[in-house]
């Protein structure tokens, strides 16, 4: 069973502000990369930011972190497995090679 303790509306607003700031940083990184050509470093930062936003929305807005441990482990494990599968396939096909900044 879930623990029935969800964030308050004020906390939801704070989470939204965090998400908005992370999005702004992402867009900022895009323009910084265009000027400086950060390449793989930029890609790593953007992917970490996207993953952070993903985890925040799934954890707090979709309430996964407040759900039963079964649901939490089952879908977190499944997500990691699926992500690993796509990464391996794309790596084998040579897609995950980061080129220099444009």
């Amino acid at each position: 069973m879930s623990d029935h303790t969800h964030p308050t509306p004020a906390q939801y607003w704070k989470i939204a502000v965090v998400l908005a700031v992370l999005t702004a940083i992402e867009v900022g990184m895009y323009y910084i990369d265009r000027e400086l050509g950060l390449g793989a470093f930029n890609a790593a930062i953007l992917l970490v930011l996207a993953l952070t936003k993903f985890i925040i929305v799934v954890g707090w807005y979709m309430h996964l972190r407040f759900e039963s441990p079964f649901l939490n482990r089952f879908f977190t494990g499944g997500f990691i497995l699926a992500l690993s599968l796509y990464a391996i396939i794309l790596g084998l096909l040579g897609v995950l090679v980061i080129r220099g900044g444009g």
Partner: protein
Amino acid sequence: MTDLAHEPELGHHDEHESTGIENRKLGMWVFLSSEFLFFGALISNYLLYSNRGGFDAPYPAEVYDIPFTSVSSFVLLMSSLTMVLAHNALSRDDQNGARTWLFATAALGSVFLGGQVFEFTDFIVEFGMTLSTNPAASAFYVLTGFHGLHVAIGVIMLLSLWGISRRQNGLSEKHGLNLELVGLYWHFVDIIWIVIFTVVYLLSLPPS
């Protein structure tokens, strides 16, 4: 996140399995997992073709309007906030609040869809990038088009709940669970866009 409110689960029935989770809710999570694999395949398809040269220009990465798409992304992100506020309002039996936030979510989703229609029109009319211009363009339109379709379905479900709430002067316990399920679907659409925005728009480069 220490100051947590006591928020009862919506639409509790006697449909618990040994997993301790509502059957319909578990079904929605399983459905969303399959959707995740579906979009994973479409995103992989785009990554495979996004910078494969030797075809007609323009490529998607040459025509993106990042400031415009950033605003669209922000709008969709904020719709997740209004969705969760609708869920929270209903859990406190604030029917007016739930109805207002539901409508706000549908409105923000519609704004996002309008932006996507504008973007597609711009790409086709201004830049001549159609579905058959090159494999990257095909992959782009199929991926973002399917995402847009999911948003449209979400907007229809949100407006349906809003209409039910207006007609019945509030959402019943049964519809409370429906709102939770629609909320899960809506947040899923948002997290898929989070990935698309980063991988497809911000990290994509045209053929060198």
